[in-house]
């Protein structure tokens, strides 16, 4: 992630602080920094969201296009994740510098969404074996302030929630073929159901305790972390261990339990916000970037 350097004494200060449940900014080990989410910020996408977590800032845009389905799953649509690290976040991301990080994040996102229940891909199918919706989720990282994975997953869920897939009509054309007609009205859309969409929770091990939502400095003090995809009901859709250090097998169930709890709370807060935003009048100005 972005280059922050810390001296040894500063690292000890952070590690002792986490041991005493008082992090540098006063949070306890299971507290998140403030999150700000806004959807529908990019007008020429089918769905978008903007998120700010502490000093991490991201923009997610979702576009859907027609494509052919995977032969192994002919009635299902496809979802592709792509992450772009902007040099705005760190000069080292210029050119191909951010590719490792991008590949890592998109790989994790694909992993947690690749199961039958996260997004019902059958709703994205149009004509079996021939046509389906391909959903492209593009994440743009504008600022890296620690805990990128959690931020990306919350923003992706919000953007998918905001994505409207055009209501398509399949009619029988000549010679047994089927024709697709797109609606004229741009508002004639069907929103993607994100009830079971997972959210990533990163639990970092620092010293002998684990913390959630590590800031950039805390990430430098942590050798190993567990990233899990958690749904609203607290079920895990994927897990990965990151970092070069080792995790004591006895502490892993505790970390998983924390992750599930935090994941559930994240979903509750996010769903409440998305509902509030939907209920707000159309003419409320979006804050955006100005």
């Amino acid at each position: 992630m972005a280059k922050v350097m810390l001296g040894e004494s500063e690292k000890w200060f952070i590690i002792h602080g986490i041991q005493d449940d008082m992090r540098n900014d006063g949070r306890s080990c299971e507290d998140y920094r403030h999150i700000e989410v806004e959807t529908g910020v990019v007008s020429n996408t089918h769905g978008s969201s903007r998120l700010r977590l502490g000093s991490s800032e991201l923009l997610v845009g979702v576009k859907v296009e027609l494509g052919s389905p995977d032969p192994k799953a002919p009635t299902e649509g496809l979802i592709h994740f792509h992450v772009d690290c902007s040099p705005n976040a760190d000069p080292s991301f210029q050119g191909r510098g951010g590719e490792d990080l991008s590949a890592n994040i998109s790989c994790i996102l694909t992993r947690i969404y690749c199961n039958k229940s996260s997004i019902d891909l059958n709703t994205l199918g149009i004509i079996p074996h021939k046509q389906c919706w391909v959903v492209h989720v593009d994440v743009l990282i504008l600022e890296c302030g620690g805990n990128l994975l959690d931020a990306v997953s919350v923003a992706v869920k919000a953007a998918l929630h905001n994505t409207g897939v055009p209501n398509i009509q399949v009619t029988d054309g000549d010679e047994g073929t089927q024709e697709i007609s797109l609606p004229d009205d741009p508002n004639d859309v069907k929103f993607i159901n994100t009830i079971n969409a997972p959210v990533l929770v990163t639990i970092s091990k620092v010293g002998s305790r684990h913390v959630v939502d590590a800031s950039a400095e805390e990430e430098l003090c942590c050798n190993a972390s567990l990233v899990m995809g958690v749904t609203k009901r607290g079920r895990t859709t994927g897990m990965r261990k990151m970092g070069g250090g080792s995790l004591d097998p006895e502490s892993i169930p505790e970390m998983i339990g924390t992750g599930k709890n935090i994941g559930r709370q994240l979903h509750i807060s996010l769903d409440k916000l998305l509902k509030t935003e939907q209920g707000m009048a159309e003419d409320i100005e979006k804050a955006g970037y100005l």
Partner: protein
Amino acid sequence: MSNITIRLPSTRRTQNQYETGNSYLVTPGDVITEDTDYMRGHGTYCTGDADDRLYSSVAGVVERINKLICVRALKSRYTGEVGDIVVGRVKEVQQKRWKIETNSRLDSILQLSSVNLPGGELRRRSATDELNMRSYLNEGDLISAEVQQVNVDGILSLHTRSLRYGKLSQGCLVIVSPSLIKRRKNHIHNLSCGASIILANNGYIWIYTTQHSSQTEEGDGGFIISNESIPIEDREIICRLRNCIKCLAKRSVVLYDTSILYAYEASTSYKVKQLLDDEVCDEIVNKTIYLLQQANVGNNEY
């Protein structure tokens, strides 16, 4: 039970409520005036004879003093003066010097001959000293130092030739804009709330526990590094101060020991992590500004 709050940015109060007066903001390339009567100050340029217009070269506020127009940049790097206190991070260990990052345009330099040797000996630095540089200051370490010299190209030469300066041990670093640090006689304070603070001129603020050393009032030159755990009460004071300073910096309040103490006192009714909320932050800063104005009124009466 933790509380995860997610909210909409439009519920955040906008900055416009706090602006007083009209400020003429410009961005690089904006035309400031087409009048040729004005003299050009910092932050402006004009292109050639054919074009009489005055352009701005930085993003900032236009200031006009009689016939002089200059643009004061909103965000700028630290430009050093001799005698300033800086807090910097060691970036590189070179042959006879360390390269220190101090939020200026170019990295500053700390010569091996400008540091005190452990034990306070005065002798010529030998090859062994050169080989042992890393055992004193390694990459990533934080130091406090004084600016000895400003070179022609802007590179600062630092020195730690006093027991007040040297390597910093456990504490918390807060980075703010250099323009917010008020120039005072003293930049190292032992605050009455129970922690000590270094308000470096380059915008790096270091908060640490007060050293209760019985020997000198000054310090120990950074040779005694303790990585023991700090008691939780002291830690809470440091975290609270950090959050207060971040609040003040967000609202561009000038930072010096009095303003920080007022903010600390105003924040005692909240828990440390509540200071991260925007509403609590605004309340504390408003109280601080009010108290500072009262103090100023008191001073002006004499």
